[in-house]
């Protein structure tokens, strides 16, 4: 029982990271109907820029909450700019070219960031500086909660809350929902569609950056290809929740994290990667719009 609780806790922690990345996929899909395959690489750049910022400021030697916030903020700004640049360079010129051409440029950007990453950062793994000294916060029975797990969970929840606020309560959020609902109509109503799309990329990339930093805290080995698998899994999480749905991505991410951890804990770790795709195929066959997606009717 205690073991199960511990596994659940680990799963929720890992799942909240998936959820942060999945949000970027789902928001971009919402406004652009594009699967942004370069999103996993933005998460990698988030972790990498956190590493360099922390090193430049010498934060690794003295763990502190202030340092963590600083690194988190810097990395989110860097990735926000990166997201806007990617959209401007690789997707905007293809806005009228159908849906497959941007998919290929997305793959191109992903390849570019991986290889440029290997060139600039080096292909060998780096060790993320210890921004928080790991210690146990409390223990109930055999279940131990570390301050790192707590930080990951609280940060992720705060960011998701902030996002929910932006999407539901601000002018920008309303514009974003309008573009997702019907872009041409939104443009007719005076919504600056291009700027909204750009802003969506900035938001999504900032969340991916945060995910990168949080992963660096709990799992310090980072390298230029680290975005590949988590990126794809987060995408599965977005589909699980219903692609295009913001709460769906959050729940989908948490669920996927918990399921993966349980499979690793109770079955076998070699099937850990497969389970995500089995879930993907099952959900697509039985409920293609995901847990929270609205069903679409096809008009002739």
């Amino acid at each position: 029982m205690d073991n199960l609780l511990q596994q659940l806790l680990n799963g929720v922690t890992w799942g909240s990271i998936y959820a942060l990345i999945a949000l970027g996929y789902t928001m971009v899909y919402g406004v652009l109907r594009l699967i942004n395959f370069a999103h996993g690489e933005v998460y990698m750049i988030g972790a990498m820029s956190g590493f360099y910022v922390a090193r430049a400021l010498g934060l690794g030697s003295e763990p502190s909450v202030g340092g963590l916030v600083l690194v988190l903020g810097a990395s989110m700004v860097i990735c926000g700019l990166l997201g806007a640049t990617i959209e401007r360079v690789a997707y905007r010129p293809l806005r009228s070219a159908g849906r497959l051409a941007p998919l290929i440029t997305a793959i191109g950007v992903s390849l570019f960031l991986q290889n440029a990453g290997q060139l600039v950062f080096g292909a060998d793994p780096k060790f993320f500086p210890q921004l928080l000294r790991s210690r146990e916060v409390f223990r109930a029975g055999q279940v131990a909660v570390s301050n790192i797990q707590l930080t990951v969970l609280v940060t992720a929840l705060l960011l998701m809350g902030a996002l929910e606020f932006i999407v539901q309560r601000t002018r920008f959020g309303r514009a974003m929902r309008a573009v997702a609902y019907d872009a041409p109509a939104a443009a007719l109503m005076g919504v600056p569609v291009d700027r909204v799309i750009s802003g969506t990329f900035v938001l999504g990339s900032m969340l991916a950056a945060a995910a990168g930093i949080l992963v660096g805290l709990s799992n310090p080995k980072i390298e230029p290809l680290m975005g590949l698998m988590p990126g794809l899994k987060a995408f599965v999480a977005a589909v699980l929740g219903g692609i295009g749905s913001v709460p769906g991505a959050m729940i989908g991410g948490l669920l996927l994290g918990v399921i993966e951890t349980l499979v690793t804990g109770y079955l076998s770790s070699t099937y850990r990667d497969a389970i995500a795709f089995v879930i993907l195929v099952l959900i697509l066959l039985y409920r293609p719009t995901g847990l929270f997606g609205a069903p679409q009717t096809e008009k002739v």
Partner: protein
Amino acid sequence: MKAGRWLPLAGALLALAGLHWLAPLFLNAYYVTILARIGIAIVAAVSLQLVNGFTGQFSIGHAGFMALGAYASAAFSVYWGAGILDSLGDGPLARVLYFPFPLVCGGLVAAAAGLVVAVPALRLRGDYLAIATLGAGEIIRIAILNVDAVGGARGFSLASSSYPAVDLRFDSLAGVYGVAALTILAIARLLYSGGGLAFRAVREDETAAESLGIATTRVKVEAFLVASFFAGVAGALFAHSEGYIHTNSFSFVRSFELVAFVVLGGLGSLSGAVIAAATLTAAPELLRGLGEWRMVLYAMLLIATMILRPQGLLGQRELWPIGRKHGAPRSS
């Protein structure tokens, strides 16, 4: 039969013979490997073009079927093939007679898996279908990774432990390009025959095609089945020309690469897929002089080409009227 119809066949055989005898004289092993990889990429790209470009169903899990073909054919060769080849005498003629077996075996296994994936998955449309094929491809890869009889995470070598003297590798470029030519011909005949219009009708408008009496589900499954068969053949060629395979070669990254071939070549153009597959396979090698920068430049080229020519190199045109009967209507 007119003499004119035999001319291309004779020319093709002559070219293959030339490739077989002359290539080893003028090219070192490195170039032969690259040329073989290009031939294999062509087989895979042309087969994917049938599904993605002509039937309008978007699959991004093609590498999974290549993996099945590669592993099935390699297992065939390692467990039975070495014995068969040994008893055939291991001469040049024996090799020519033997190699169709693993290739067809790989193709059939991949086609069977293609059927299993296609029947439920093709109910889905657009992005959802694409995502499902991506998932299916990864499931296949991870499943193979967990089968110890084909090496699991160690990879799988064609060297057979019971017949160590028998070389199972496919050493002739003529074989690879012969198979590539047959693949192009088969798919072109399928597409540009009268019945081939059904594929394009489904691509243009599924509902309209159905209302005209086209069994759209059957057409889609057929396209998927044929494409996965040839993907399996491509995998089998890969296994037998490299001599060692690992599931890492068949990840979704490989599937994406194949999708890039068909989109960049032009969705709906077989010759476009051939050109894109050849160019993009050769490009990282041609750029080798740039050292570490080559893959960065390759990615930039991919993005730039797509932005400059979003419809792909050839759009829906063909460079030559392959597979069309004389007088058959041209599609444009």
